[in-house]
Structures are given as structure tokens and as C-alpha cells.
């Protein structure tokens, strides 16, 4: 592999990893704070992508569609938390897996009923439809670069909110000892609802940003869900910083695996996960919540 191709592949790997991080961060946040294993996280990614497509067809602008779809995702998150997830905080993980897997089936049927089984393309906004050269023959679309940048910004913002704000302090406190926080007069139920809907919105946003890159199709959530779990497990369950490094590792491993070991490409990510777990059984930065 020539040096220029090597550098290109690093760029590809990081870019893929950043998008995975955006999806996985919501998953790990919800688990870290609420202690809920949310299988429906991939469905939120799919819903975000479908909303971005559907609303951009209606409004004619992807940016407007995203601005409309984010509050919609937050509302969906609140509704799912209130109606379903809130009943599970006291239960074990098996009940959570069963319920959230049921939600996956529900959302898949909903997608089929509302939007059908066709594959849809989402057009990038005209202002961002340009590309920049990448290596000799390849180009890099602005939307890809922008998506990567957005992922970094969101990651930094999340870290600042959790570590530096009063709200973040409550979240961290709620994660480590919910009863004590409640005794101190903080509404933990409300806190959890906010965190869950934030996780939903993050997954949805990842879907919206990815929609122009991946096209929108049935079952797109499941592929992402599995990789997100790999990222979360590698990073340490509940750790946002861990998810960041885990996502980059998965992105790079997947990219180089495809080029260097094509016959082994689909297994390489899992091999990396196994190696990390042998070295650090609780993941890179697990299982403590961010900041501890």
C-alpha cells in the first residue's frame, strides 16, 4: 500500500468512526445513566433517516428537515420513555432486552406502513454539494467532511455538558445513586426522561446526517445497532469518552480490514472487540461513568 493510499484509508476510517460514535454515544449515555440496554436505538437511527428524507421531500430543504426532525425525535424519545422504558428501571436486563426488541419490531412495521419498502435517496443541500480533492483521483464530498466535523462538535459539547454544567452534575449524580439524588429534592424521573430523549435525538441526528450518504432503506437501523454495541463494549459500557475511542478503533479496523484482509473483512471488527476484551475485560474506559 502506497503512503498516499495509507493516509486516505486513515481519513476514511476516522470519518466512518466518527459517525459510529454519534450513534453509539446515545446508546452508552442511556445505559450509563439509566442502566437500560436499549435495542431500539437502531430504530431511532432509522426513524431519523426516514424523517430527514420525508421532510426534505416535503420542505425541499434538508437543513430545514433536520431542524424539524430533531424536536420530533425528542418527542418520540419522551413518549417511548414515559410509556415503556420508565416501567423497566427496577427490572433486570432481560426484561429490557425483550421490551426494546419488541419496539424494534414495532418501529419496523411502522416504517413499512408509513413509508413502504422502497429505497430513497436524500439530496444534499445545493450549497454543500461540492467536493474537495482527496489524493490523486478521489474526491471528498463536503457533506461527508461536515458530518465528521459535526460529530466531533457534538462529542465535545456532550462532554462539556456532562462535566461542566449543573445539569450534567445531576445526571452524573443520578447515575451513581438515584435514590440519594431524589432524596435531595431533584426530580429523577424527569432527569431520566431528558437523558433518554437526548439519546434518542442523538441516534436520530446520526440517521439524519447519514441519510444523504447511505440512502434510506428498511432495516438500516439493525446494521448500525450491532456495530454500536461493538463500539460501546470496546469503549466500556456507559463511557462516552470510551465510545469515542472505541468508535475510531472500529472505524479504522473495518477500513483497513477490508483492504488488507478482504476475506476476513466482516469478522475483523469482532476480532478487535475480542482482543480488547481479553486485554481489558471491562472495555477501554469502563465501566465507570464519564468523569470517574
Amino acid at each position, binding site marked *: 500500500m502506497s503512503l498516499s493510499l495509507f493516509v*486516505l484509508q486513515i481519513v476514511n476510517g476516522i470519518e466512518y468512526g466518527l459517525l459510529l460514535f454519534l450513534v453509539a454515544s446515545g446508546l452508552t449515555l442511556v445505559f450509563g445513566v439509566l442502566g437500560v440496554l436499549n435495542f431500539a436505538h437502531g430504530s431511532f437511527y432509522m426513524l431519523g433517516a426516514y424523517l430527514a428524507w420525508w421532510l426534505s421531500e416535503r420542505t425541499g430543504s434538508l437543513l430545514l428537515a433536520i431542524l424539524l426532525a430533531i424536536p420530533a425525535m425528542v418527542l418520540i424519545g419522551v413518549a417511548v420513555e414515559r410509556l415503556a422504558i420508565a416501567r423497566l428501571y427496577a427490572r433486570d436486563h432481560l426484561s429490557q432486552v425483550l421490551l426494546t426488541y419488541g419496539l424494534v419490531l414495532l418501529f419496523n412495521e411502522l416504517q413499512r406502513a408509513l413509508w413502504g419498502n422502497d*429505497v430513497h435517496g436524500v439530496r444534499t443541500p445545493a450549497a454543500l454539494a461540492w467536493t474537495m480533492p482527496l489524493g490523486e*483521483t*478521489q474526491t471528498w464530498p463536503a457533506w*461527508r467532511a461536515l458530518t465528521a466535523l459535526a460529530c466531533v462538535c457534538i462529542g465535545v459539547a456532550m462532554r462539556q455538558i456532562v462535566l461542566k454544567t449543573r445539569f450534567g452534575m445531576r445526571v452524573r449524580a443520578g447515575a451513581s445513586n438515584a435514590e440519594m439524588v431524589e432524596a435531595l429534592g431533584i426530580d429523577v424521573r424527569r432527569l431520566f426522561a431528558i437523558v433518554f430523549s437526548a439519546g434518542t435525538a442523538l441516534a436520530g441526528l446520526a440517521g439524519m446526517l447519514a441519510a444523504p450518504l447511505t440512502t434510506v432503506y428498511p432495516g438500516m437501523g439493525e446494521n448500525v445497532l450491532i456495530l454500536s454495541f461493538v463500539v460501546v463494549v470496546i469503549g466500556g459500557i456507559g463511557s462516552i469518552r470510551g465510545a469515542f475511542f472505541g468508535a475510531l478503533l472500529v472505524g479504522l479496523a473495518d477500513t483497513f480490514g*477490508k483492504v488488507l484482509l478482504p476475506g476476513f473483512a466482516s469478522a475483523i471488527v469482532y476480532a478487535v472487540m475480542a482482543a480488547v476484551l481479553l486485554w481489558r475485560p471491562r472495555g477501554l474506559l469502563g465501566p465507570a461513568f464519564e468523569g470517574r
Partner: protein
Amino acid sequence: MTLSRRAVLGAAACSSLLPRRLFSATPARLRIGLLLPYSGTYAALGHNITDAMKLAASERGGKLGGREVEWVAVDDESDPAKAPANVNKLIAGEKVDILTGPVHSGVAMAMMQIVRQENVLTVVTNAGAQAVTGTLCAPHVFRTSFSNWQTSYPCADVMLKDGRKKAVLMFWNYSFGQESMAAFKEGYAKGGGTIVKEIAVPFPSTEFQANLSEIASLKPDAVFVFFAGAGAAKFVKDYADAGLRDKVALYGSGFLTEGVLAAQGAAAEGIKTTLHYADALDNPANRKFRESFKKATNREADVYAVAGYDTVHVLAQALEKVRGDTGARAELIAALETVRIDSPRGRFRFSKTHNPVQDVYLRQVKGGREVVVGVAMKEAEDPGAGCKMGK
């Protein structure tokens, strides 16, 4: 004259032993089994095939060979693991006269194992697996769609004629992709082309970026791919986004653009593909078919619907020759083997291995629409490798 009870019973018993074809007054209904996906990723294909079959039957007054048609549909869910149970349900449970389907090649392979044992007259309406009219071929099995070979072999010649002698192959690594690639390589090597690299992508992965960088650094004359559905939509977009569309020409079997052209948008511009059908084919049969399909279903017809439509017309022609008697197996098979129809795809007949002999068209995306550029291969006939039908 009085009849004894014994005489009446005896006559009744004798008459039930007589072959059915002697009774032309009220023939039994013709039960046609449909083993197709009505849920999951391929649901739309299953519905299009079914609706086109019903359309063809209604064009013939709802009767084939003088017998009223009764449809028995089973959702195969495109799940090969459930295929044996579903096939048995249709054959043993529903006792269908003729079995048709499926879409998925894995289901087709499972189905072939059973219909070869049960000896049921079978028409494959989509699955392109080589084995159906190759190693697993049987006298009572016909295919009205295509073989994977037919979708890819002709494209090699097209690329060489365009002066592209160095190619990269990229495909989803499962039977359909592998068979397409094998067929393409056969044709490309014969014409003196060189394959620089083969990139197998695990199915159904759609993360292509790393491989696109690889293609950019290899700088071949052209890339030949097999992807379908959502994967095809994404690949074509990624390929254009990576700036490769204008530098390295993209070719594929027709499934690269079939049904996903709208999702691909401008990214698909200029792509050349080969397939035995194109929506834009300009012949009277196609115009009429597309119009009536649209009227009946309010959807656009596609290559899948064509196979369903032709299946019923082919069966009708053959059944007329035997006056609807599915028991006259040898005559019915002989009639099917000599069927000639004017399909929406053009003239069409069966090869010795019971696969369609059909023109494969060269199509190109121009202005967001699939345009028929010409015929890539006249009367393309699958070699039927491994078929031992003794003919």
C-alpha cells in the same frame, strides 16, 4: 327397466377411474401455487410478480386451457430455512397442479430439492441461480426469468467494445454476486481483458469507502459491479461522491439501477448495464403490458412483473395444446418446450435446459432515465453447465 343398487354403485366406481380429460363439461379448477415473498425486503417483488400473473390470467378470461384458475399463495419470507415447509404445504397440503416462484435464490435451491423428488410441474419466476437450469435441472422445471449468467456475461463484451481492457470487479459476496462475477470473467477473459483486482464485499455491508479509495489508486479502465436494492443505491451514490464516476466508467448487471434509479438521482448518470428487460423497451407488447399493469395496480411494472406475466401466458399456451389436462405430463412438457411468445421483453423461447433464450439489452442512464442503447447479446442462451437432462 329398473337399476339395481349394485349396478349404480359399479358405474359410479368405474367412472371415477376414468381419466379426467374425458369429462370436458365442468373441468376442475387449475390450482397454481405461488411461493413468493409478501413480507420483508423482497415483498414488493413478490407483489409485482403476483399481480402481473393475475393480470395475464384476466387477459385470458381467468381461464388457462379452459380451466378456471385458483391461486394458492404462501409467503416464503425469502427465508431458505422455511422453504421446505412452505413447498410441502403447497404440494402436499394444497395439492397444487403447478408450482411457481420464488424470488430468492436460496429459497429456489431448497425448492428444487423437493420438486425434483415430488415431480411437480414448476416454473421459476425470478431466482437466477445457475443450478435451477444447471446442475439441478429437471424436465418438469422451467424458468421464465433469467439466469445470473445472462445478466453479466454480455456486459464483458460491451466493456471491451468500449475499449476498456483493465477492470476491477466489486460484488456482494454471496451466490448471486459470485455467479455474476464468474460469468463476467468468462466473457472478459475470452475477449482479452485483464482483471486487475476482485473486491468481495460481505453481504449485506454497504460501507464502501475503503474499497473506493483502493479503486482510485488502482486506476482501472472500468469497474464492473454486482449490487442490488439498497446496496446498489448507496454504491452508485458513493461512487459518484468519491469523484470516480467521471474518471473510471461504471458497468454492472441491470440490477445495479433497477428499481433504485430515483434514489440514485444524478449519481447514476451514464452508467451502462445489461439486462433482459428495460422499462423503456419500445415494442407493442411492452407498451400494452405497462399500461394495463399500471391500470390494474396503480404501480409501474418492472422486470419482476414481466416474469410473472410471461409465466401465465407461457402456461396458457401449453395448457391449451393439452386442453387443460395437467395429467398429460409428457405432452404438456413438450408443449412448454416449443412455446414461443411475444413478451414485453421481446421474443422468447426455452433453451434445452428450460431457461429463457432472450435478447440481453444494453441500457444506459441518460437524464435520470434508463435508455435502451441496443442489444448487448442477441438470443443469449445460458450454457446450462452441469445439466444432465439427456438432450
